[in-house]
């Protein structure tokens, strides 16, 4: 069409006129959306968590399987009752403003998180902390009202990022500024467009998954927002971007050509599952819930939309999280069996002339609406007519709760998504009253309470699996697949050393941009 030399000239002219900054030693990572806040207490999205992880440190880190390991805290001890945790901190950790990170910063963070007027959105996950005491600058003691074993994995997650107390004097913390102690420091945040980070030259890595013991190799990290998957792919191909989530459908071709390498996050803890408004019929009847489980085949749906990038999950908490055991869960999860589904529905009086009508609520993005379309077709096969409603995760959380508070009206089910570092999420979801005010029983409440206080790992595991069994057998939380969002990374060939830590935390400290 256009002769090649001319095309090249044109291209060169356009690129020259574009005034693209020479990235040089800046790593460019493109994602579909932006963070909500620089303040780790003011948001819950994975997009935000991933960035906080780069800017802040937490007391603990995780190993490749997701288990907590020492990091800023070099060791910790507990009393017998499990109500006191004493952490000794590593020496020489500096906040980005040059002040040393010590026990006071930890105390400051916890008190912010639990404050009356503006608590952390994940306040409940900190547990029943009654006091944080600074024993000396490198020793801090947490006192709990009751034992809470999920606190240790929480202190390894991004939600517990340590906020340096120098932020107290800073204008616009969370909006324009943020002082952490992580491997990258904040340069600027242009909302909706990009976050510019620079390497923290003083960084000391004690327990993070990066092999690099100190400061990142490259000078900067630019995290840009490119919502359109094909545009991200184009940017990857031209070199404008080094790392980004590609369109899923293009992954096999990319792998084949070797043009870009594909990194798939493991041990993400992401769980996509069916759950139901159990406040009214039909889903207050366990048969209807189990019928949905028997009618839907996640393996087929994933294969159509994500290929081999995701896998079916049998447990209510996914691989990488304490207690997960595929073989155990498969015994109880309603398996794909449309005939069984039809039989259960027939018992309830539903059939081809009298289909079960329901609304299926789905989180927008990541091609989940396409997956929902497959499930919708599968449900139709067993006489369940589901209308799909697509919305953002925040609205979806609200909607699901509203549905549970209604006592009449059309049935409602949803393809919920949660990622957590510990089975304690099941407490938040299913212990009465429950995050969504949904299913709960005194029996389940008791089991969930035990999972918080059993300090012996083997005993806790047995109890957690008892919870799994209850949720699966009763069709309360029917797991579909894992991972489910922001877990695929296409990486340019010159990028060396990129990896993704458990719970989808990309690690850039080891990245070198080769020739």
């Amino acid at each position, binding site marked *: 069409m256009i002769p090649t030399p001319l095309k090249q000239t044109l291209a060169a002219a356009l690129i020259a006129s574009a005034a693209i900054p020479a990235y040089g030693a800046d790593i460019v990572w493109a994602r579909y959306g932006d963070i909500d806040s620089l303040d780790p207490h003011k948001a819950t999205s994975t997009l935000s968590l991933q960035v906080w992880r780069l800017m802040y440190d937490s007391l603990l880190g995780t190993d490749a399987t997701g288990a907590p390991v020492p990091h800023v805290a070099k060791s910790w001890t507990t009393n017998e009752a499990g109500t006191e945790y004493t952490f000794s901190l590593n020496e020489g950790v500096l906040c980005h403003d040059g002040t040393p990170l010590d026990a006071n910063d930890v105390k400051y963070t916890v008190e912010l998180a639990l404050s009356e007027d503006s608590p952390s959105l994940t306040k409940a996950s900190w547990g029943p902390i009654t006091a944080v005491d600074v024993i000396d600058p490198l020793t801090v003691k947490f006192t709990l009202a009751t034992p809470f074993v999920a606190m240790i994995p929480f202190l390894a997650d991004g939600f517990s990022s340590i906020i340096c107390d120098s932020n107290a004097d800073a204008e616009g913390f969370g909006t324009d500024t943020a002082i952490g102690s992580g491997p990258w420091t904040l340069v600027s945040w242009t909302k909706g467009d990009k976050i510019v980070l620079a390497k923290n030259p003083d960084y000391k890595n004690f327990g993070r998954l990066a092999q690099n013991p100190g400061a990142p190799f490259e000078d900067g990290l630019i995290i840009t927002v490119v919502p359109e998957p094909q545009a991200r792919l184009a940017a990857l191909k031209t070199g404008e971007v080094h790392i980004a989530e590609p369109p899923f459908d293009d992954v096999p071709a990319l792998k084949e050509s070797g043009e870009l390498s594909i990194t798939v996050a493991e041990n993400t803890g992401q769980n996509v599952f069916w759950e139901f408004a159990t406040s009214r019929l039909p889903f207050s009847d366990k048969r209807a819930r189990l019928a949905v489980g028997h009618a839907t085949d996640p393996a087929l749906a994933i294969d159509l*939309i994500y290929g081999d990038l995701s896998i079916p999950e049998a447990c209510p908490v996914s691989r990488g999280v304490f207690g997960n055991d595929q073989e155990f869960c498969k015994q109880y999860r309603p398996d794909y069996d449309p005939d069984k589904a039809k039989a259960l529905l027939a018992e309830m009086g539903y059939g081809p002339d009298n289909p079960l009508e329901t609304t299926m609520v789905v989180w927008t993005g990541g091609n989940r609406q396409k997956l929902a379309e497959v499930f919708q077709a599968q449900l139709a096969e067993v006489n369940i007519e589901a209308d799909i409603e697509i919305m953002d995760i925040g609205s979806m959380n609200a909607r699901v709760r509203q549905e549970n508070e209604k006592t009449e009206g059309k049935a409602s089910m949803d393809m919920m998504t949660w990622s957590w570092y510990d089975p304690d999420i099941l407490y938040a979801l299913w212990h009465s009253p429950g995050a969504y005010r949904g299913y709960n029983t005194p029996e389940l409440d008791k089991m969930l309470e035990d999972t918080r206080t059993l300090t012996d790992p083997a005993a806790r595991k047995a109890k957690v699996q008892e919870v799994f069994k209850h949720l699966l057998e009763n069709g309360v939380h029917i797991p579909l697949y894992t991972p489910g969002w922001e877990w695929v990374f296409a990486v340019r060939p010159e990028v060396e050393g990129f990896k993704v830590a458990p719970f989808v935390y990309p690690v850039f400290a080891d990245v070198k941009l080769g020739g």
Partner: protein
Amino acid sequence: MSAPGGVTALRRPSLLLRLVSTPAGAIGLLIVLVLIGGAVLADFLAPFDPTKMGAGRRFQPPGGNHLLGTDEFGRDMFSRILHGARLTLLIGAVAVLISMTTGMLIGLAAAYARGWSEAVLMRGTDVLFSFTETLIALSCVAVLGPSLQNAVIAVGIAGIPFYARTCYSAALVERSKPYFEASIAAGAGHGRLIFLHLLPNVLPTMIVVATLGVSTAILAAAGLSFLGLGAQPPLPEWGYMLSGARDYFNRAPWLMTIPGLAIAMTVLGFNLLGDAIRTALDPAERQR
């Protein structure tokens, strides 16, 4: 047969003739007729159920068993486009009906009542008009929540200011005519004046405007569906299909091309037809 009836009977074929006498009008009419035909007969013409997955291999290119190929679920694109035509026409018709009836009520009321209620109505309309239809539609969807039904209502509401203004000017012209003054003098009631004198006389203008308005409404609704704020799966709505096809552009470009072409052709059809009707009805316009 009474004389007025005879006049209409005489006039009708000549309007149609004038319509098809220009190539643009003929093409417009043809496109619209084909669309209506496809929409009405979709159940007979479509070889497959438009929502049936696995009707064929996935990503089959156009040709052979599947005239327009298949999508990512192996659904037949031709069947989906046909059923989509039905949706699209329905969307256009309902949205225009909402805008036109409400707009006409406002316009007629303002032109008839005069005084402060006229000022309030028309100033309000002007304000809304300056907001543009996209913003109004978006605000309505923000309040109502995303669904095809709400998108149609939103587009319908968004169109009201335009129809109100058009109807208002047309009604003002009518109101100033001597026969109208005469009717008032003869003691005709409000209802009679509005519905027997004003309404029938502004109606032809409004119908022309509505034909053109269908294209705007279809475009706006498809835009909302494209953004994910309109039709929800598995409806074969063209804007939604187009939006869902982006991910498969490298493997199956036709999934994006076909719904886009369908929207463009439909809008073109109504635009051409609307222009042609206007020209046919308005000799002054024809001179230009």
